[in-house]
């Protein structure tokens, strides 16, 4: 079955100075699916993901070639409004990073920056986002407490809710569960499974079982190259490339 493509990457290469961190990556990310990126440390998967919302621009000496086509434009173009881009393509990081503010203000921050000041509207956005992130039930009676008092798993869901508040199109998740315990991880994975109905999600993970659990497609990266990209079942059951086989069976990496 043909899929709608949300992001189309063509011959993407990235250099940190003389070091080539990404080598001629070509991949189509389907819409409203979870795509997992796996590979050993230093393979380029986080670098790749950060290219999709131009976070790598913040690194001195970075050079990018190729195309990343999103909504009919190449987002690597120098005229791209990166602020607007990062609203559309939001990101969650390995370590939860709530602002040192109340739970409410964490969620309301993004909409306020984008011009929403009506209290009733903000209340609706906060409630909807927290519900969407499966956190409302746990915090609805203490929205004005500090977000820093939440557990690690709750903080990560808060970060996801914060992302959802600005109505993104794509969610980038860079090892979102690495710092969490198994139960918190399970809740995030359940949340990812729910969110995929409405968002295109790309998740970087070291945990192959997690990639197998949550994603429909998986890409294996190694030394800056994308070695294999397949439906998740195929990649983990019968990978085509022996390097993929070696990595997923734990024989190296």
């Amino acid at each position: 079955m043909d899929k709608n493509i949300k992001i189309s990457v063509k011959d993407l290469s990235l250099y940190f100075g003389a070091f080539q961190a990404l080598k001629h990556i070509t991949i189509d990310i389907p819409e409203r699916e979870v795509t997992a990126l796996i590979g050993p440390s230093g393979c380029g998967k986080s670098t790749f993901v950060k290219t999709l919302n131009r976070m790598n621009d913040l690194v001195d000496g970075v050079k990018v070639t190729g195309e990343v086509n999103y909504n009919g434009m190449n987002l690597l173009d120098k005229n791209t409004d990166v602020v607007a881009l990062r609203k559309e393509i939001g990101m969650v990081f390995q370590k939860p990073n709530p602002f040192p503010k109340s739970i409410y203000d964490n969620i309301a921050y993004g909409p306020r920056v984008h011009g929403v000041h009506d209290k009733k509207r903000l209340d609706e956005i906060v409630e909807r986002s927290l519900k969407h992130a499966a956190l409302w039930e746990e915090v609805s009676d203490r929205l004005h407490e500090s977000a820093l008092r939440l557990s690690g798993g709750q903080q990560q869901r808060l970060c996801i809710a914060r992302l959802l508040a600005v109505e993104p199109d794509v969610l980038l998740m860079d090892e979102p569960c690495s710092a969490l315990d198994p139960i918190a991880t399970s809740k995030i994975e359940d949340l990812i499974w729910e969110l995929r109905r409405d968002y295109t999600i790309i998740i970087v993970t070291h945990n192959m079982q997690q990639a197998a659990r949550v994603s429909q497609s998986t890409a294996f990266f190694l030394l800056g190259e994308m070695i294999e990209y397949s439906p998740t079942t195929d990649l983990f059951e019968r990978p085509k490339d022996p390097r993929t086989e070696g990595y997923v069976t734990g024989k190296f990496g």
Partner: protein
Amino acid sequence: MVRIKYVKKLEDLKDNVEKMGHSAMRSLDYIIKALKTNDTALAKKVIAHDAEIDKLDKIIESQCISLLALEQPMAGDLRVIATSLKMITDLERIGDEAEDIAEEMLMMDRPIRVAISETTFDEMVQKVRGMVADSIKTYAQGDVETARTFESRDDEIDSLYKKIVSDFLNTVADRSCPPEFVRDIASVIYIIRYLERIADHAVNIGCRVLYMVEGERLYMR
């Protein structure tokens, strides 16, 4: 190489599956010899021997589940474990069918006296034996080329089975056939039916080996 303990566990699993294959093969060889020489003591040995096959079945199942639970195998390793888990069912059934043949033999208190075309019966027996022996080898060696031959070889066995049954039914239809021979014919039909089923299990093993090596799924018999 990493995961030394895990790799050893996989090797042990494969060794045990091969061991179970050889044990099922022994049952088949014993019963073939018992039929040829009308050796009822050997037929009893086949029945007793089935316990060894059943024991290995349980050990291997336990190994597979342990590997799945504790090691999260993927790719080729996962296919080896999945194949092993299914294949032992076919091997266990081969043992059961050999045991059924032995019981059929022992139910008759005298040698089979019907005029079985020795050539046809022997031919069928040797083809079945060959397939079972080859099926165990295909697993051990990952030999997909041989595995792909099983379907056509099984078709030959099915043809021989139909011919033998047809010949016997014609004999029964002949009113001059003595009644005690009818009982013998029924027993032989049961016996060759069990042999035909043993060949089907060898085909299943071949299909599973194809999946194990190439990830290709084919229909079983």
